[in-house]
């Protein structure tokens, strides 16, 4: 199962027939396994890894460190879920250390992100403070390096 997950994480668009051959299982067995992973909520979805600088150079990503006042009942969960529902929010994580929530926000431009932070996020009652950091350049994402490493030369036949 670990091999399957690893292969799908590497490239979920690999044809199923090929995955089955690599794993040494039948296509029917593979389909059943994947279906179970999806049904159990282990696999939540399949996405493309995008080089944003090529796709939309104006797009902005911000990582926001948020300090919040936890609630008597529910702790951080209710407030985290509330933040997660916003469309601009790509990720929300509860963190150890100097802040509580780490919120990743994507916008088509700087204004979109600024407006989200000013109007939506920082105005939530439980939010005490926000420290917003903007991404300047991406080197690697989801395990994919953005600049292709040049393949070193290899001899064609070696013992």
């Amino acid at each position: 199962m670990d091999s399957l997950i690893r292969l799908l994480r590497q490239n979920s668009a690999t044809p199923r027939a090929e995955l089955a051959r690599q794993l040494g299982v039948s296509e029917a067995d593979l389909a059943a396994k994947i279906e179970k992973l999806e049904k159990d909520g282990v696999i939540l979805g399949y996405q493309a890894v995008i080089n944003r600088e090529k796709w939309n150079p104006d797009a902005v990503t911000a990582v926001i460190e948020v300090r919040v006042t936890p609630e008597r009942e529910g702790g951080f969960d209710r407030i985290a879920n509330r933040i997660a529902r916003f469309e601009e929010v790509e990720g929300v994580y509860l963190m150890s250390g100097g802040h509580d929530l780490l919120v990743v926000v994507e916008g088509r431009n700087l204004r979109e992100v600024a407006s989200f932070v000013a109007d939506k996020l920082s105005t939530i009652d439980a939010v005490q403070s926000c420290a917003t950091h903007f991404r300047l350049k991406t080197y690697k994402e989801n395990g994919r390096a953005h600049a292709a490493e040049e393949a070193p030369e290899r001899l064609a036949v070696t013992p």
Partner: protein
Amino acid sequence: MSRSRIADHVRTIPRSGIRDFFEIVQSMKEVISLGIGEPDFVTPWHIRESAIYSLEKGRTGYTSNLGAPRLRRAIAAYVESHFSVGYNPHDEVIVTVGVSEAIDLALRALLNPGDEVLYHEPCYVSYSPSILLAGGVPVAVATRAEDEFTLRAGDLEKAITPKTRVLMLNFPTNPTGAVMPQEELKKIAALAVKHDLVVLSDEIYSELTYDEVPHHSIAALPGMKERTVFLHGFSKAFAMTGWRIGYACGPADIIEAMMKIHQYSILCAPVMAQEAALEALERGQRSMERMREEYRLRRNLIVTSLNEAGIPCHLPKGAFYVFPDIRGIGMTSKDFALKLLEEKKVAVVPGTAFGPSGEGYVRCSYATALDQIKIAVERISDFVRK
């Protein structure tokens, strides 16, 4: 009458069959090569990074002839934990320029002219020439397809004579991927004891066994440590072929004799490669496992695809080679490889490059990117269909 200026014992050694083939491949464009006996992975970054760091620190001098003491200690600990045989890093371990050098040292240290050396075949290309260069007499024992090219003790015993001094083993095997079953290995160990043979055990592929098939070192069997030279290195498991770094562990008298030759011909293995090797042993397990998993998936794909194409191919348990049976095609191994190269631009190595008993087989390496393997196998299927 002019005499050849090249010494007879060198002149008479044939060039490697792989070398000839390499030159033909080299002259062609856009060939997909399954002929490569080295990992397609670049050395894991943390290993490269540690070598760079050591250069920055200015570690550029000689090390002890036997190799840096810290590396020798790490090797002894690694061999103890992975192969269950303990060596004293002080005088039972030598760091060499690849296993190739270690084999050469061991043969030169052990052989008197005319001594016979047994090895199983198909096998790595250097065994027979190395034996000849050391003044020995190579004696090949053919292994059988029906045994998945493992060595039968019975076949081995028939080849033993009063002149036999050394037995060379290489499991997992290049080019067949064979892994010895423990029971047969015990019988072979018993023969080595009975006939007082020294065993050179080249275990360079030992990390690369698949599907939980265990690797057993003959050195760990009772009575074998004192007559075995355990040879290993970093090239295959840690994708470090170009670093040229290997090692031998064995009885102190043999290591001492090997060291004598090594100190005069090599002095010591390159210090930066030794630094990199240390990092590989201390923190390389994770990257090794990742590469091994990738090889396993490729092996499954290539074996399934070749069998579907009507080329019988057993599922090898180790190394990164498959050794499909092309006897049904009606061509010699060499013709098959040449025609496949000419017509479909896929390079495989004729089985005969690994000894006459490789006739009827070709070696395909799956240490090549998966998409290349896929195209290559499709082309091979087309070729065979025609």
